[in-house]
């Protein structure tokens, strides 16, 4: 399935749910030559063949609940987390589920939509789809979006490693793109998340999201990575995306396999946190909580 075979109606004439439904078939067919993320594995996920993410053709959910740990403007948020990911971040806070696309239960879009509606009626302000990395499960995501309440604020939380094809499937569906800017250089990305070419793919996604949605950037400050990761990231954001809201998260804890790396065995020291705030100020970033 090539990208040129995907014909797209103009977004202005269709609602979100209808758009998602219309794209569903093409998204499923695209799994026969999977190019959904910047790895471009090209495997046929409709068979037993697996790419870097290890995911098959059906998405699974390992968590669906109302949470208040996200950005203040989004909470309470009904967060739907899909298992499986195309990155291998050693410090992943949900590593057991994120690295295992078989974790959790099969995605049941109608049931999740009912629960989301119930959450909204009880005061939730938004619905968030996250992972793992939900991009790898685009067909399941489209099925879900086609069922979710049409007027809810819908947030796409992503590692920013999507391909251009995936972005076409996702265009005009989400009110907010919440993108993790994890690493400020490709060396740290390769050492800590086993990924090549991280920076170019990430920045391409950020630029696209800023043009096509409301972009909010998150950075999880990692101990010992202020200068190599946060400083370049902050500089790039300040230069290329001035005014974009940024959430600098200082609550790193050594989860999953973080302790394989010497500098990631403890939370970020207060000196690192202070330098990170100073760096953000110097870059002129619009910080939010």
């Amino acid at each position, binding site marked *: 399935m090539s990208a040129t075979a995907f014909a797209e109606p103009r977004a202005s004439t269709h609602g979100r749910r209808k758009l998602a439904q219309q794209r569903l078939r093409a998204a499923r067919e695209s799994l026969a030559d999977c190019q959904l993320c910047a790895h471009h594995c090209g495997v046929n996920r409709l068979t037993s063949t697996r790419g870097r993410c290890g995911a098959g053709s059906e998405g699974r*959910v390992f*968590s*669906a*609940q*109302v*949470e*208040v*740990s996200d950005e*203040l403007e989004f*909470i*309470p948020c009904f*967060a739907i987390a899909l298992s499986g990911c195309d990155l291998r971040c050693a410090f992943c*806070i949900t590593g057991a589920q994120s690295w295992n696309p078989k974790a*959790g*239960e*099969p*995605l*049941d879009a109608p*049931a*999740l939509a009912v*629960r989301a509606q119930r959450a909204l009626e009880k*005061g939730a302000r938004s619905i968030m789809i996250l992972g793992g990395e939900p991009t790898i499960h685009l067909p399941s995501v489209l099925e879900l979006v086609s069922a979710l309440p049409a007027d809810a604020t819908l947030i796409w939380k992503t590692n920013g490693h999507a391909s251009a094809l995936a972005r076409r499937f996702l265009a005009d569906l989400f009110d907010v793109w919440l993108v993790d800017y994890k690493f400020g250089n490709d060396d740290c990305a390769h050492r800590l998340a086993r990924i090549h070419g991280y920076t170019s793919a990430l920045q391409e996604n950020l630029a696209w999201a800023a043009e096509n949605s409301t972009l909010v950037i998150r950075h999880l400050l990692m101990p010992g990575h202020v200068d190599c990761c946060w400083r370049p990231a902050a500089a790039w954001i300040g230069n290329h995306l001035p005014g974009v809201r940024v959430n600098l998260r200082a*609550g790193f*804890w050594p*989860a999953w396999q973080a302790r394989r790396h010497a500098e990631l065995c403890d*939370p970020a020291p207060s000196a690192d946190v202070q330098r990170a705030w100073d760096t953000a100020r110097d870059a002129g970033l619009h910080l939010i*909580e």
Partner: protein
Amino acid sequence: MTPEPDRAEQMTELLIKQDGTIYVHNLTPEMALVLSTLNPDDPRFRARLPEPAPTADARAIAS
């Protein structure tokens, strides 16, 4: 079938350091209420409280 939240599938993870610092992941409204009751002076938990404000029952849970 995705688990229902009232069947104890909701989860918050806490990491409590020796100095009393609490790191929280997947903070649910209920846990935010408990943590805010434990430390009413922490503005970060208070900012994430669901409406209404903590009741006597919440204090009883936290005590």
